[in-house]
């Protein structure tokens, strides 16, 4: 899948982050971020493409650093996030979020990259029972 601003590697890391915060299965709903990876990553790519260049580059750099930095910092393991399984990633994010500092503020990076993109998809809305009050029959498309 070609992206406009994300490299394949960056898309892979963000996908791994997504699967950590929204893993498959569980007792609430079965859908996981990995199930719709191609769809929501395109939306994250679009969101990033509209950010100023320094913000975008900063986020892209952060993604690479965190891929190794987080497991090293919190699990004392030199193992990339992308090499972990879903359960390990979720566990890592739990540890980060409950850490004293920087805690949930740092996990916000992942949430910003994943949640708005994922929960904009029809499948995700269905999974959580979300329905807009009104459709917009006049909608023709996004604009630059």
């Amino acid at each position, binding site marked *: 899948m070609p992206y406009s601003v994300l490299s394949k590697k960056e898309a892979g890391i963000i996908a791994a982050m997504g699967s950590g915060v929204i893993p498959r299965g569980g007792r609430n709903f079965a859908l996981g971020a990995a199930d719709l990876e191609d769809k929501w990553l395109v939306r994250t790519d679009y969101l990033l493409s509209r950010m100023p260049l320094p913000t975008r580059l900063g986020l892209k750099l952060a993604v690479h650093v965190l891929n190794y930095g987080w497991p090293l910092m919190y699990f004392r393991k030199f193992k990339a996030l992308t090499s972990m399984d879903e359960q390990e990633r979720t566990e890592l994010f739990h540890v980060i979020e409950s850490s004293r500092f920087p805690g949930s503020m740092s996990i916000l990076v992942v949430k910003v990259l994943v949640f708005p993109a994922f929960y904009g998809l029809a499948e995700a809305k269905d999974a959580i*029972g979300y329905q807009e009050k009104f459709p917009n029959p006049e909608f023709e498309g996004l604009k630059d």
Partner: protein
Amino acid sequence: MIQEYRDISDHIIEDVDVCVIGTGAGGAVVAKELAEKGLDVVALEEGSHFTVKNFNQDPGDMMAMMYRDSGTTVALGLPPASITLGKCIGGTTTVNSATCFRTPREIIEKWSSECECNGLVYQELIPYFERVENEINVTELTQDVLGNIYQIIKRGAKELGIDAKPLKHNVRNCEGAGVCQWGCIRRAKQSTDVSYIPKADNYGARIYANCKARKLVVESGRVRGVEGVFIDPLTNKKRYRISITAKVVCLAMGALITPAFLLKQNLANISGMVGKGLTIHPCGRVVAEMEEDVLGHHGVSQGGQIDTFADEGIMLEGIFIPPGVMAMALPGVGEDHKYLAKHYNNLAAFGVMVSDTTRGRVFPGLLGYSYLAVYSMNQADAEKMRKGISHVADIFFAAGAKRVFSGCYAMPVLNSRNDLNEFRKIKIKPWHFEVMAFHPLGTCRMGNKPMSSVVDLNLESHEIKGLFVTDGSPFPTSLGVNPQVTIMSFATRAAEYINANLHRY
């Protein structure tokens, strides 16, 4: 006619009475008021022109499309504060919650007596409030669009002996679609892109979208015009230039960009006050998990208010957001997150807005950013935030909440009133709060004295004749309420002054 980048095929030269930069609450009003009086007006807007045909109700898409920097604009500090701004025809009025308040009388009196704004009289502002409210149809929301969260808040507040009221919005035939901040899909919200701008257009004003002002032309202490450039919104490439000769220029880019624009050119800053005095109304968001079905998105996103604590600088106002944004505001990953997502329809939320005593500062933007803002909430405002959150949590518990999410990192989840009591006592620092802000003000303050203020009471620069600042920048303190009616009313008043004194320029 609104002309966008794609409509422009050559450099443009204009010679007009008035050039307005910005089409939000401040700019659109001046453009319409002066065009209506027969003046030759040009308005420049950096963003594009969007209509209901472009609104898909998705916060991710809408932020990428209509918000400055995809909604990632912040004030740096501890804690950093997210300050979202609209970048489109209509400016932030297109993406705000439509809440309308007149400027509180005591604020005007304070400005007059304590902030060197002698001569500002509340009574004299009333006709301007009325004119604005009439133009944008300010009306109290009806029960059928307020939604269930308002009923929950009202129920809880009643238990505690507190009064909850509906807010006033600038809407016509609102049906409570619940997407005010992502572009109103029912054309109900009377943001300036559907109220003032079409009228300005009808009266002959030329409105250029995708047009960024780059330079003010100033000669011998008088403003002479504006140099700008059309920017392709897709590629950010600059193509055609616009050169405007104008007797009067009104800056209405908002309290973050207007001062940065002036500072970059070292203009109108004899007082040294340009960029100083930033207030933002720091806001917190309290979310409650209820037993009942709430369906918070099936009603206006900001419906109710509690002004009982306004004297303490705390306003409580409704707020609700779609799941993708709500999930960012809630703690939890993995199964914890999925539980809350699955129970989205059981979530209720209400906001806390602090009338801040903290002052931040705006600097010229670097690396392509329009501005750099620095703002670190002080301890007094953090205490107000804690107090406001405690009040909302108390109301939610009184209404039967299972648990409450405070938006405070020091104690993010309150499972009971005992937790709430503990939350009231724990040591709190400003950086423990997740802070959002929506009302930057105060960075080109008005006043009587040229050495301590940037503009006079008519919003004209003390230093540069014919240069006006008609956005939220001139207000010397925070208002304690949503500022769009205040900005519009002062802009109307400035337009009246400009029209009466045009012969001087």
